[in-house]
């Protein structure tokens, strides 16, 4: 076995795929296991130029909750087993595939980034494009587009091996050919035709109604025209909605502090104001000290109740909606918005006070 040979790779897996156990083992720190495990064995069978010399297995919870520390531990494991000399280590690490598993995805991506930055290795992972790790790591990590679940295992392993080899050979990775998730970074290249010819070809396609791909997709901002003013606020039902992360204490729906995957609906019936005991901020994008000391600062229940008592508004809706805007994708935010709006319209709410942070 040649540790530093061009076939040698290190494979990162979670505790489940490494065969160490299920959720009860999710707290495990990363461990070094010689040779391939689970998907690594399949990888060796379908990619003949790959030899998995070691598997590093980490528990989903431990990894996701201690990303920085866990990545340190993986780097330390590699140095401890293979030495600090780059020549004595494989040049390639493959992680996952993590499919749509959020914690596993975060771990795979964090491990990839750490070994690239700190050990000079090339690392490739694979996951479903909507895995929350994609948004956090796409800029720094080569991520192959994978299926949502284990049905996509073989394709993902094959693709990771191919892209890893390509990057080892210093060949550029092109998302449109290689199936990687775009890093969101612009990279120059020499096209086979001049810009003028490409422009004319694109125009002829556009005129003929044929498909063409713009070479730069401009960011499109969704400008929503403001709704007309509410004519009679004194009889209107008003609702509170926030992306500022104010949730009942304990965060019953476990809304994430960044890249939120859900929003919550919570009763404020009978409550005059929020208190540090009743509510908290779970938003990871600002210092929550002042929001936790007085959650009304972000979700102004106290002010709305005052307006309600004074007869300035008809009625405050009994349920408020909350999510975390921090790093949450526009696509998801649009979905939350549509769902919340549908419910509010359904129960006759006429206007919303929406607070962001």
């Amino acid at each position: 076995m040649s540790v530093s040979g061009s076939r040698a790779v290190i494979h990162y897996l979670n505790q489940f795929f490494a065969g160490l156990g299920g959720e009860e083992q999710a707290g495990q720190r990363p461990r070094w296991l010689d040779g391939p495990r689970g998907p690594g064995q399949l990888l060796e069978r379908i990619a003949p130029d790959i030899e998995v010399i070691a598997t590093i297995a980490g528990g989903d919870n431990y990894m996701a909750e201690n990303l920085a520390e866990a990545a340190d531990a993986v780097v330390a494991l590699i140095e401890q087993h293979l030495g600090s000399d780059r020549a004595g280590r494989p040049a390639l690490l493959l992680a996952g595939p993590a499919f749509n598993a959020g914690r596993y995805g975060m771990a795979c991506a964090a491990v990839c980034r750490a070994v690239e930055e700190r050990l000079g290795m090339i690392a490739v992972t694979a996951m479903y494009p909507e895995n929350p790790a994609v948004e956090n790591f796409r800029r720094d990590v080569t991520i192959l587009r994978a299926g949502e679940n284990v049905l996509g295992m073989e394709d993902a392993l094959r693709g990771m091996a191919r892209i890893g080899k390509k990057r080892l050979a210093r060949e550029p990775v092109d998302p449109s050919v290689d199936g990687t998730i775009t890093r969101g970074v612009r990279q120059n290249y020499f096209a086979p035709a001049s810009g003028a010819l490409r422009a004319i070809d694109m125009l002829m396609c556009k005129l003929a109604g044929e498909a063409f791909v713009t070479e730069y997709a401009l960011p499109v901002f969704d400008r929503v025209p403001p709704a007309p003013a509410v004519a009679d606020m004194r009889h209107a039902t008003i609702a509170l909605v926030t992306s500022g992360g104010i949730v009942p204490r304990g965060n019953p729906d476990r809304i994430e502090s960044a890249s939120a995957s859900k929003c919550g609906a919570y009763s404020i019936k009978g409550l005059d104001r929020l208190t540090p005991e009743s509510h908290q901020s779970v938003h990871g994008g600002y210092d929550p000290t002042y929001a936790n000391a007085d959650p009304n600062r972000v979700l102004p229940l106290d002010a709305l109740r005052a307006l309600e008592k004074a007869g300035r508004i008809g009625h405050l809706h009994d349920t408020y909606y909350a999510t975390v805007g921090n790093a949450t994708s526009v696509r998801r935010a649009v979905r939350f918005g549509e769902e919340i709006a549908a419910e509010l319209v359904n129960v006759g709410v006429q206007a919303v006070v929406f607070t962001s942070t």
Partner: protein
Amino acid sequence: VQKTLTFERYRVRGVKLGGRTELADGVLTLDGHGLERELMANEPRIERVVVQTAVPGESTRIVCTKDVIEPRAKPGGAEPGQGVSRVLDGAAVVTCGPIVGFQEGVIDMSGRGADYTPFSKLNLIVIEATPAPGVAPHEHEEAVRRLGLEAAKTIAERAARGAPDSADAIRWEDNPVDARLPRIAYVDMLLSQGLLHDTYVAGRNARDALPATFDPRAIVDGAFVSGNCVSACDKTTTYHHQKNPIITELLGGHGSRWQLVGVVATNIPTRLGEKQRSAEKAIELTKSLRPDGVIVSKEGFGNPDADLMMIVRGLEAAGIKTVAITDEFAGPDGGSQSLADTTPEADALISVGNANERIELGPMAKVIGPLPDVARLAGGYAASLHEDGRLSLELQAIVGSTNQLGFGYLSCREV
């Protein structure tokens, strides 16, 4: 009266300094000292002129390049777009010298940098001009502009003689076309923002003269002259105007693949109100040509992005399909938004590259022009100059690297 334009091309395969200016067996010989004296004689604003040559593949770097011009002569003296033009094909005059406006560029004749500029493939006559003390920058610009044009004309008049290697009649209005072919127009945006940032059209400043429709043949026959001291990557040099690839290609397919219905040249002013008025007029002129589709090219970056978006929006609103050519300023890491403005109608863009990409150029045996000024170029920075002769630059500082007429092959994609 039908106009005809004929390009008589004289192929230049090499250039050298020698006793008498002539073209023999494809080699252009230049009386460098004679040319220096002639150019100096009529230009008191220039204190010193040095004529040198640079050829493809040689270890030469030209710094602080101001303009590039294809040497051409019009022996019959007709207006641009008509008559016979004699062309020294494969040669170009390059003006350089102490920096005029911070934004002159680099041409490398070999190595990595040569891939990014079209001028590394040409036989170059380099006119290095030093201004007299006390000459104001705008006078300096005008003097060097005139010097370059004069040199290009003089050289072509003396060297392009006898039978040409080839002759092309450039046909347009007199070319019978199938009315069923798609009608294509071209909108040529010219930077025109004040002293050191102007383009001249048929002898007038583009600020005053545009928007206007043009015979495409006039543009490729010298009607447009660059007076721009803007970033080297995407300034449209006089050479680019003379060889405008969009016009050349559209004329090439005129009558067989499409009908080229006309060209609108428009300016790119500085103030929003002027931008809106210019864009509106350019859109109206373009609509009057009744095109099905339009190609829009840009010069410069930043505020010109707003003019481009206005024009695309207006044309698309009129039901005219548009494709626009632009470069990108996405930051050295490629992670920033590339343009200063956006509109949903601009759904068909050609990218000619991210001008912020950094590149390291190896040392060259010979450097023409004032090397220390490189650190002051747009696209250069304090650490650009290395002691061993290496240069670290953004592509922005390389002449023609992201030309927005689509002259080059560079593009950019998301990875």
